[in-house]
């Protein structure tokens, strides 16, 4: 059985083999990932030409470490965006985690115990976000606006409205682990980020919960009627986001060796930018974490590259803002085109040969 329509061949028997590449391409948001990857490569080449130092091993290693926080918060934000929600509390949870861990360490608590307490506190914020939205039915924007303010308040209150002193000698191992140390020639921060990415990418793409995240973001009613537990799915997304934020908070503490109350300021929106550049839809249901990697990398490369090129912060901000808008515009244009193209090849016609019934 073979049907040839405008160059599109669909063969039922061979369908499986043939569709392998197609399946990858059909992955939610893969189109945009490819487009922005090309953009990223172009950026790297341009900056490489502008400044020979840009592509040295040392700078690349630094660059990757610089990208890590954006990518980590981007992973969390992507999870939440895919469910059709948003997490505005990310930056504050980063700040809160930074302050809690640093304060505890300056008070002489074992750094690793401090790490655990920090994660628990952050996860609690995630849980709160999830429940407020899925159970109390608050709009995500409002709920996380509230917890954003609360978490920032906690960041300020834990050390009586002061940044902390240096976390000291006892935290040497902690600082090595999260920031300064290297394993196999790569900064630990990079390893941690890769590890977390691999885990959450696996969870999102290969498990039932992952599928439910997409389903809830795509059509919450249909998911509910299909037996998906809406509340727990949304809560899980927020817990993942909080976990990622806490990790960034700990990295921040390790980086500066102290706790700063306004750490993470604005990170939630950088995380949105990384996700959206990478093809995650703010309307839910769409996007993959590979895109978030590219999105965060574009973000980091622009920051780093423009800095090298001597552009002042103001210019950097303007350029990055423009890039965010352009990538999303591009995606919309591509999608519109695809729709028009579909109509031309007859999406209304089915893939299978026309059935012939007699009644």
């Amino acid at each position: 059985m073979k049907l040839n329509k405008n160059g599109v061949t669909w063969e039922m028997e061979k369908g499986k083999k043939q569709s392998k590449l197609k399946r990858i391409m059909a992955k939610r948001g893969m189109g945009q990932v490819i487009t922005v990857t090309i953009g990223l490569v172009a950026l790297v080449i341009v900056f490489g030409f502008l400044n020979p130092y840009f592509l040295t091993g040392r700078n690349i290693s630094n660059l990757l470490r610089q990208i890590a926080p954006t990518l980590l918060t981007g992973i969390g934000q992507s999870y939440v965006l895919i469910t059709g929600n948003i997490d505005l509390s990310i930056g504050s949870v980063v700040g809160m985690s930074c302050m809690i861990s640093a304060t505890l360490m300056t008070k002489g608590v074992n750094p690793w115990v401090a790490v655990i307490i920090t994660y628990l506190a952050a996860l609690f914020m995630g849980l709160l976000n999830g429940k407020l939205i899925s159970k109390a039915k608050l709009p995500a924007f409002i709920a996380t606006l509230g917890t954003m303010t609360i978490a920032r308040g906690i960041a300020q209150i834990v050390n009586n409205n002061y940044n902390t002193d240096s976390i000291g000698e006892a935290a040497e191992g902690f600082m090595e682990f999260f920031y300064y140390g290297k394993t196999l020639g790569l900064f630990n921060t990079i390893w941690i980020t890769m590890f977390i990415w691999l885990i959450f990418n696996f969870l999102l793409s290969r498990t039932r919960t992952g599928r439910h995240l997409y389903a809830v973001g795509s059509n919450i009613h249909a998911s509910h009627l299909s037996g998906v537990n809406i509340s727990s799915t949304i809560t899980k997304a927020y817990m993942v986001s909080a976990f990622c934020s806490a990790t960034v908070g700990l990295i921040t503490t390790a980086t500066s060796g102290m706790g700063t109350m306004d750490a993470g300021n604005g990170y939630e929106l950088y995380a949105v930018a990384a996700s959206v550049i990478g093809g995650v839809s703010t309307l839910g249901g769409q996007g993959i974490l590979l895109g978030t990697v590219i999105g965060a990398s574009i973000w980091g490369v622009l920051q780093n590259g423009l800095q090298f090129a001597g552009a002042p912060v103001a210019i950097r901000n303007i350029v990055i803002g423009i890039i965010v808008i352009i990538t999303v515009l591009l995606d919309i244009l591509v999608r519109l085109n695809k729709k028009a193209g579909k109509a031309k090849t007859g999406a209304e016609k089915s893939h299978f040969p026309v059935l012939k019934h007699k009644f």
Partner: protein
Amino acid sequence: MGNYIVELENISKSFPGVKALDQVSFTLKSGEVLGLLGENGAGKSTLMKILSGVYIKDGGSMEIFGKKVDFLTPVTAQKMGIAIINQELNLCDHLTVAQNIFLGRELITNGILSDKHMNAEAHKILEKFQIDINPETVVGDLPVSKKQLVEIAKALSTDAKILIMDEPTSALTSKEINNLFAIIKRLKAQGCGIVYISHRLEELQYIVDRVMILRDGKYITTMDFKATTLSEIISYMVGREITEKFPRVEEKVGEEIFEVRNLNAGRMVRNISFSLYKGEILGIAGLMGAGRTETTRAIFGADPKESGQIFIDGEEVRIRRPMDAIKAGLVLVPEDRAKNGLCTKLSVKENITLPNLDIIASKLGLVNRKKEEKITETSIKNFDIKLANAEVLADSLSGGNQQKVIVSKWLARNSKVIMFDEPTRGIDVASKVEIYQIMNDLKSKGIGVLFVSSELPEILGISDRILVMADGKITKELDVKDATQDLILEYATKFDKKLDSRQEAIEA
């Protein structure tokens, strides 16, 4: 008694302002197809949503497979073997067909989703029911009729023993409907109990064993289908006799009021030319996907045109966006009410007045509340829209009543030409007749009426002249006196035939 698989007794359910169900009892046997009938808003969907765990009953008792059930959720209902095909499509547009079919009960190997397995299973299910959709297609890319098939496949795939179909055929082509009937017969033979809800009463004769009728949330009667007639069923549904299913008004055909010349817009609108005269209803027939909706949308300015001219009263009008069309006196009552017709989060009043604000508001843009109330009241009365009051949200209305709101909002203003795209989909018999009568009224008043419909009986019953479309082109113009169902179908499938022969050539 023994062989009832569902027994509902004295079920009641209220929504704010409406008593949707009032002490309704219901039974279903295994191996039977029960037609659940009633006007729009009679409570059919509500009753079935209670049975499938979507709504929780206010009172009454439920027994399913002889077991008393007090509290039912969608999940427990599914586990008990109840599957429902909802009136509104309930699919995740971003997921593939297979992923939708297995949503909530994904196949897992070693804790990992097995898409391969699910695709293969979905393929089997689709093939078994002769539904020709590739399981790996993303649902959002499918046309409505295919989506409805996916919804059906999803329900069937659960191997349910109790299957509820709430207007499953409203978006299907006749071929697909016949296929569905074959499936229903097969399931019935396997001992499933099936509840079938439809406003297309002609369908009942092919499948239904027994009918149960609701009216205004109350149980009216149950009858063996063989022992009754359609007109008896209708009179029970409506509470009075309906004498004419397709009331016809003869008018003298006058001068031309509307002309479309060589309209092109994408692949589905190719070289469309036609005229519309005073005193006639011009029907457009064709299969799903023939380009009828695209044509009306392009005329209305909702989609861009490539070329073509439009004349109203002999004068050319430039229509680039809907506002231009509305100003010129040309309006569209669109299909797919949830997506194109209604702002579901606005009240009924706001919906009705939305396109009429230019009439209601003063020059400064201030809305005249009195006029607003009056227009809304008139519309609700003219169309007999069933609602608690005009302030309720549009999406709380039953499907049919929503459709009436859409039609009525355009009729609240004086337009010269009105295009109706499937205005009676999902609407009960009595309301259908009301809508036909409204179209007849418009015709008598000299307003041009363009009437797109997939249902041949109503096209034949109401239009004066019929255009048949296939594959984006007008394949035939027929006077209603010469038209028959077969003739229309012949021209509506002109394209299909071509495809078949091409395909046979490839296979040979």
